């Protein structure tokens, strides 16, 4: 009987993956959380500071840079939510008018294939005050046109949001398109025969039917925003000042610029907590979806 080997081989084959998950993920996460309770600076100190275990967190929340980062996180999340809206509109139009589907999908999705560093170069050039859009508008007679958004702390985040919406709308469009195509065509026929206006069909029937897709998009967007680093670096490098810092940027900055390991670990742990806050609904959603799917099958 080769039965015994057939039990052991799969487990052996999983060994590398398990090792990576245990060291690179679980162990590393635990290590970072541990570090966040120590007084580690440039080098790790393996002693928890029991007098004030939360000293790094206290410092963190007193740090203007961190508060700006959290604030920007919310701004970015709401701003980027525009991408879901745009994605749905584009998907709905493409699905309605089948002509040119491949072409439009290709165009709307290409930004996703390009490095965010490249995206940053392109958009910084567009926002360039000397030679970009601003100059173009001013030379066309709009003397007061101001597109120098990246150099103004109050508008820099919006420039990042525009670039981010441009970059990710196609992604949500692709997800929405898949969701729309999953809708039974007879639903559309029924609505046509009922003579219900298209807008009402979308609002009352189609969008409620796609609630899972929308929720998935919202959660993926939130997770993406928490991870947002490249685009900040490429667009503004955090500036002007600290005005476009986000937690991902703050953490790396604390590590590589300030060289403060305990502090960076506390920030990273906070990032993990925020992720979990978004992630847990996703777990619940998946469970819910499976339950609904099971019930629907009967």
């Amino acid at each position, binding site marked *: 009987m080769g039965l015994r080997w057939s039990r052991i081989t799969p487990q052996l084959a999983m060994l590398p993956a398990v090792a990576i998950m245990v060291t690179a993920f679980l162990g590393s996460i635990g290590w970072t959380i541990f570090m966040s309770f120590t007084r580690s600076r440039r080098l790790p100190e393996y002693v928890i500071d029991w007098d004030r275990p939360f000293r790094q967190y206290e410092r963190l929340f007193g740090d203007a840079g961190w508060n700006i980062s959290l604030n920007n996180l919310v701004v970015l999340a709401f701003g980027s939510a525009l991408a879901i809206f745009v994605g749905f509109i584009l998907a709905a139009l493409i699905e309605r008018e089948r002509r040119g589907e491949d072409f439009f999908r290709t165009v709307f999705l290409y930004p996703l294939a390009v490095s965010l560093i490249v995206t940053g170069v392109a958009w910084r050039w567009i926002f360039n005050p000397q030679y970009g859009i601003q100059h173009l508008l001013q030379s066309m007679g709009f003397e007061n046109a101001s597109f120098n958004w990246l150099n103004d702390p109050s508008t820099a985040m919006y420039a990042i949001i525009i670039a981010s919406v441009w970059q990710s709308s196609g992604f949500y469009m692709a997800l929405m398109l898949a969701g729309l195509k999953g809708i039974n065509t007879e639903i559309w026929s029924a609505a046509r025969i009922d003579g219900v206006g298209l807008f009402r069909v979308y609002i009352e029937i189609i969008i*409620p039917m796609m609630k899972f897709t929308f929720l998935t998009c919202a959660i993926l967007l939130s997770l993406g925003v928490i991870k947002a680093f490249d685009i900040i670096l490429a667009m503004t490098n955090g500036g002007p000042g600290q005005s476009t810092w986000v937690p991902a940027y703050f953490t790396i900055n604390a590590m590589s610029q300030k060289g403060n390991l305990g502090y960076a670990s506390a920030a990273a742990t906070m990032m993990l907590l925020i992720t979990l806050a978004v992630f847990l609904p996703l777990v619940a959603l998946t469970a819910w979806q499976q339950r609904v799917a099971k*019930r629907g099958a009967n």
Partner: protein
Amino acid sequence: MPRVSFEHIVKRYGNVTVLDGLNLAVEDGDFLVLLGPSGCGKSTLLNLIAGLQDVTSGRIMIGERDVTELDPKDRGLSMVFQSYALYPTKTVEGNLRFGLSARKLPKAEVNKRVKWAADLLQLQPLMRRKPAALSGGQRQRVAIGRALVKHAEVLLFDEPLSNLDAKLRTEMRLEIKKLHDTLKPTIVYVTHDQIEAMTMATKIAVMNDGEIQQFGTPDDVYENPANLFVASFIGSPAMNLAAATLTVDGGQPLATFADGSAMSLTDAPFDNDVQPDREIMVGMRPEHFVMDATGSAAGHAAFELPVRMVERTGSDALISLDFAGEHLFVRAEPDRAVKIKSGDAVSVHYPIAKLNLFDVQTGQRL
């Protein structure tokens, strides 16, 4: 309720012609079943009348109105879909109301109609539920209710029972039939299930390859199939079709089978003049065979054949006889069938008047 007619309907998808010059008309209050195998064009035809697809050329009339260029909602019809197409995010009541909401009816009228449909189809206890929480039969009733509340003149059904199990299908068949008897709408009903067609229809249009093979009452289609396709498509168990050569001997038509046996067709129901010396198919329904010895009266053809197999189907038994190397199926009562074993020779008789004769070359009824 109006008459519905299709006039010279042509439907092409690119180079593929699905319907080519089709004509068909049903009178008001008729229950028309479009019957045929999948891909025969019956669903296309239904979508054309619904306005979900456009004709390439031709005209569709509902009553005195030419609806060819009208939007689905303006054609005055409602439809029950194969998957029911209930709006999953709305309750049963919401589903019934949604179809009416576009019509700007007074609220009292909407309430009245919804209550009427709910009572008619016993939907009252389900009104607050969502479609996902309903059984297949319940969903089906909601779908019918949604079509009825619109008081449309023409009701369309697209294989509405194909997703139900056998028992529910029988129940729903009766229910739809009852609805038609009480409300008398004009119904166009698409199915590939001949039992649905036979039980519910007042008129059947048998379709194949985008053409109407035969249009008539269920009895007509069953007893007098117009061609070989209809003969073999309608009926379960299927009609026996035995190849033979038609000759005329002294003014008397005669069919000679492959085993050399001959059958006099003097009393056979020829629709046309008999033309001799051609290959024909002799069609015999399994249930028309007579096994009694007394059946050997005049007007019957006698067969003395060895038994190949006996199959019990419950209420019936099917005896397979060896006729010129082919199966010849004979329906028998179970009591009689238990006494018959394979290898036995039995004698059966077939009434000549109930023969169906077809020209092999054209496939048409002789």
